[in-house]
């Protein structure tokens, strides 16, 4: 009887040891790391660098000096007699590293604006004009009192125009 009891004790102890080893065995793990680094090595920087009056005809005058930010240029002129006009040169520079192209020119005017005032854009052409890195576009905008238009002065006497130049990567 004692032999059986001792054997049972030893067997039981060994089983406990084996079970314990199995539990420890199931916790094996490994952690692997993947590291990625991405750098955008180019610069997309297009902007208005200046606006300058380059021509005046008749009695046209600047009501306030033109001004600009990187993305907008504004001017405000007065036209006293038919055929008066002022022309501005707006420079757009590409100081980035990516070549650009003028994709679209959009002109919009305010509602109920004077039909006697004309705007003309010269120097660039949508889908044609390129603006390479380091390059410059010169856009001429002329505002004029159309002398051939019979204005009875009962219509609107002012006209605000917004011209948008959309450049894309070429």
């Amino acid at each position, binding site marked *: 009887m004692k032999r059986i009891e001792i054997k049972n004790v030893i067997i039981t102890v060994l089983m406990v040891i084996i079970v314990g080893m199995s539990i420890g065995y199931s*916790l094996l793990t490994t952690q692997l790391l993947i*590291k990625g680094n991405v*750098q*955008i*090595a180019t610069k997309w920087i297009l902007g208005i660098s200046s606006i300058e009056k380059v021509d005046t005809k008749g009695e046209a005058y600047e009501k306030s000096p033109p001004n600009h930010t990187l993305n907008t240029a504004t001017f405000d002129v007065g036209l006293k007699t038919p055929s008066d006009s002022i022309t501005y040169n707006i420079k757009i520079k590409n100081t980035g590293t990516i070549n650009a192209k003028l994709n679209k020119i959009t002109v919009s005017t305010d509602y109920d604006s004077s039909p006697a005032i004309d705007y003309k854009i010269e120097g660039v052409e949508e889908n044609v004009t390129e603006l390479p890195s380091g390059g410059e576009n010169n856009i001429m905008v002329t505002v004029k009192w159309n002398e051939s238009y019979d204005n009875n002065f009962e219509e609107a006497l002012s006209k605000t125009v917004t011209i948008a130049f959309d450049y894309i990567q070429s």
Partner: protein
Amino acid sequence: MDKRNYLIAGLLVAVIFMGIGFAALTAQLTITGTATIDSTWDVKITEITQKTLSGATQDKEPTHTTNSATFSVKFTKPGDYAEYDIKVTNNGTLNAKLKNITISPEDVTNAQSGIKYTVSGVTEETTTLDSNQTNTVTVKAEWVGTDTSMPEETTKQVTITLDYEQY
């Protein structure tokens, strides 16, 4: 005289038997067991290769150790991307399973602009890696193609952690 000899002999035999019985009652039993772990746990990165470069350039050759792989690329325009295949091999005798994939920072996987990362080829809690088998993890880095302006972050690093465990 003979009777005493018999008695002595009998007593001696009794003593001997009693000794034998006593010895039997106190016999020591010994069981010796030896256990050896003859299996191995060996899951590691064995290779990283450039899969695709579209508009992108490699800043430096990809490298790896048994526990990590690294790559570095440069983009020049929206839509540029690079893909790398990272091989994870089980050289041990114990089967493994991909328990968890952790990507840091978290927002790189669903970026709507700028730099985006995507991991494919493996699925956590599903992909297994049996002994002598290989998992191929594909990591794609890209400049989101719909961007029309420069992103605020022009450099972005990511760390992808793969946790394998025995199953």
